[in-house]
């Protein structure tokens, strides 16, 4: 097993009456892309800010690279790259000057820094925009600049706090591919997001956070195995009679059916041929149907089953 690079133990952070982090426990190993998944307000950013010693916490312990993290742990900070949720660049500096400025906070040697800045520009594909001021950049390019500023000094640990918020799909894919490339180059990544698809796509291990505590942790397959649901079948159909519904419900692996807006949803737990069995009932009773989907459980299903609410609903709230 790889070395533990980040260790968060029993972390508690309170804002007066509100408990933002409630005994949060996380261990992140070297070489991982670790996803911190949770709805807005679940405590992801607070956890990251505590991890970086930007916020004081009430209880618990944080270790990075085997050393206790404090606001004056400059040797640890030297090896961390941070990409904040809000784009943090100076409006008065050009793209090049911004990357050089943030890289210069870590790298003193001018020659080395110049090379690192160039590498970061190439990595993020900003070659054509080096003389642009941030105001002139699109949302996607700004996010790429934000990433370039965070990774230019080639850190061992990179923390990305929702780096794809308000980014178009094309730029989002480019950012996600970049993160995977950084990981292949040897960096350990902590990636927070409320976009389940992104986390599912790139993270090797995931912690799901709700109300400041981690409710589940593991690889995506491990997380999916934690829940009852293994398959969700959706069938386009006119309103079925109760006889058909009871027949479907009586199938061995089916544990829930629901009809809404012309779609019949059948939830299954285990079993290999659930779709065939359901369709056989339709055929036997000569019932016509439209499109049919069969989906494996998603992280949203995991979140739904563990917390009893949908992650997307929570976002809206």
């Amino acid at each position, binding site marked *: 097993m790889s070395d533990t690079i980040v260790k968060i133990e029993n972390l508690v952070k309170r804002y007066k009456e509100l408990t933002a982090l409630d005994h949060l426990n996380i261990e992140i190993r070297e070489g991982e892309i670790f996803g911190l998944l949770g709805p807005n307000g679940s405590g992801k950013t607070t956890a990251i800010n505590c991890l*970086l010693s930007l916020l004081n916490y009430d209880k618990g312990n944080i270790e990075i690279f085997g050393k206790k993290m404090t*606001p004056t742990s400059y040797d640890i900070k030297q090896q961390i790259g941070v990409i*904040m949720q809000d784009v943090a660049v100076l409006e008065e500096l050009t793209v090049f*000057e911004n990357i050089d400025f943030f890289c210069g*906070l870590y790298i003193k040697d001018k020659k080395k820094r110049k090379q690192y800045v160039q590498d970061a520009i190439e990595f993020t594909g900003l070659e054509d925009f080096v003389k642009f001021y941030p105001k002139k950049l699109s949302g996607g390019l700004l996010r790429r600049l934000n990433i370039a500023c965070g990774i230019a000094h080639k850190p061992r640990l990179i923390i990305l706090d929702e780096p794809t918020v308000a980014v178009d799909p094309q730029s989002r894919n480019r950012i996600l591919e970049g993160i995977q490339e950084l990981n292949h180059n040897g960096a350990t990544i902590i990636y927070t997001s409320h976009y389940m698809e992104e986390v599912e796509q790139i993270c090797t291990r995931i912690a799901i956070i709700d109300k400041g505590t981690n409710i589940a942790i593991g690889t995506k397959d491990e997380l999916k195995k934690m829940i009852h649901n293994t398959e969700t079948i959706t069938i386009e159909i006119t309103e079925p009679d109760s006889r058909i519904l009871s027949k479907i419900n009586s199938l061995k692996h089916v544990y829930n059916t629901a009809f809404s807006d012309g779609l019949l949803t059948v939830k299954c737990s285990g079993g290999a041929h659930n779709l065939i069995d359901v369709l056989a009932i339709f055929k036997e009773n000569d019932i016509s149907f439209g499109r049919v989907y069969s989906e494996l459980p998603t992280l949203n299903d995991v979140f739904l089953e563990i917390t009893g609410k949908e992650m997307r609903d929570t976002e809206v709230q």
Partner: protein
Amino acid sequence: MKIFNAFMKVLLKRLNSSLIYVVIFISIGFAMTKSSSSEKEYENVRLNISVTDLDDTAASREVIEFIKKGSDLVDIGSSREEQTDALYYQKADVILTIEKGFSDRLKSGETEELFKEYSVPGTYSTELFDSQLNRYINMINVYISSGETVETASQKASSALSAEVETIMYNDNNSENNTLSKPIYFFFKYLAYIFTAVLTTGLCPIILAMNKKKIRMRVNCSSITTNNQLLQTTLGTLVFVAGLFLVIMTAAAILYKSELFSSHGLLAMLNAIVLIIVTMTICLLISVLAPTEKSISMISNVISLGMSFLCGVFVPQNLLGNSAANLGKLLPAFWYVKATNIIGEKEGEVFSSESFFSCLAVQLAFAAAIFAVSLVIAKNKRQSRS
């Protein structure tokens, strides 16, 4: 020195608004110096006079010659309507008719009914012309009574009154009576406005830009120590402030030359150094309160203009009302202006090194108090954030 370098880059990008203030201020200083030079700048006012000579004698012609020396003769026509139009449209200031028998009346010592005069009553030009003409007639009478003929009396009176007295403007200079001349006094007095305006519009946005929450958090994530960050930001601030002071003092040295380096000039410089320190702390306080960048220019105007009016920069302190003066005493610029008045012995102040240094001490006390308040606010903000 990455933070210092970035500070300077941001400063250069935002220097324009500050430069405008400095350029205008130095230009005004230059204009004031030029306008107060001791060269002759005084000359008599020339009026437009229309003269009709009904007497047509040597004496009456001599009157016209006398008038021509100090005024310009204009031809406006002889009808009553033309004359009133000329007065209305200010083509002529006075319409004078030398009555028939002018010479004879003078000879017999009469001074009444020599002229018929139309003018706009109560105007400065009428009074001036009447006074000149009366002096001329009286002078002729004096010569006639001493036995001269009308003709020679007229000539002598004309030449006697035409003699010009050399006028030299008083320049309450400076090094001889050991105070400040008016131009350098006003230059230093207006620094209270300029320093506040330039530093609040120039420095506050830079500090705000460098201290934006997201930038500060991002820098705090780096391996630069907090002390180093503070040191580099302070260094940037000092370079800006020192640069501004140097530019202003260089301009003063060019404009006022040796007077700047006289004992009172050096005291004025010392006073300005204390003022710029106070202004720096005001900027720090504004930045700590973290207004939006858009509101900076409004805040700058309110503080710089408000303080200047209340503290006697634009209005002399001895003309301020009691309540305004009492309110002004609660502001540091009041003590700066008072110290400048003491050095320049203006507005009723008399030089005393004791009162001058007391004013400096009050300003420094203000600086210390504002700095302390800024630190308390900054600390509270930091604590509430974490």
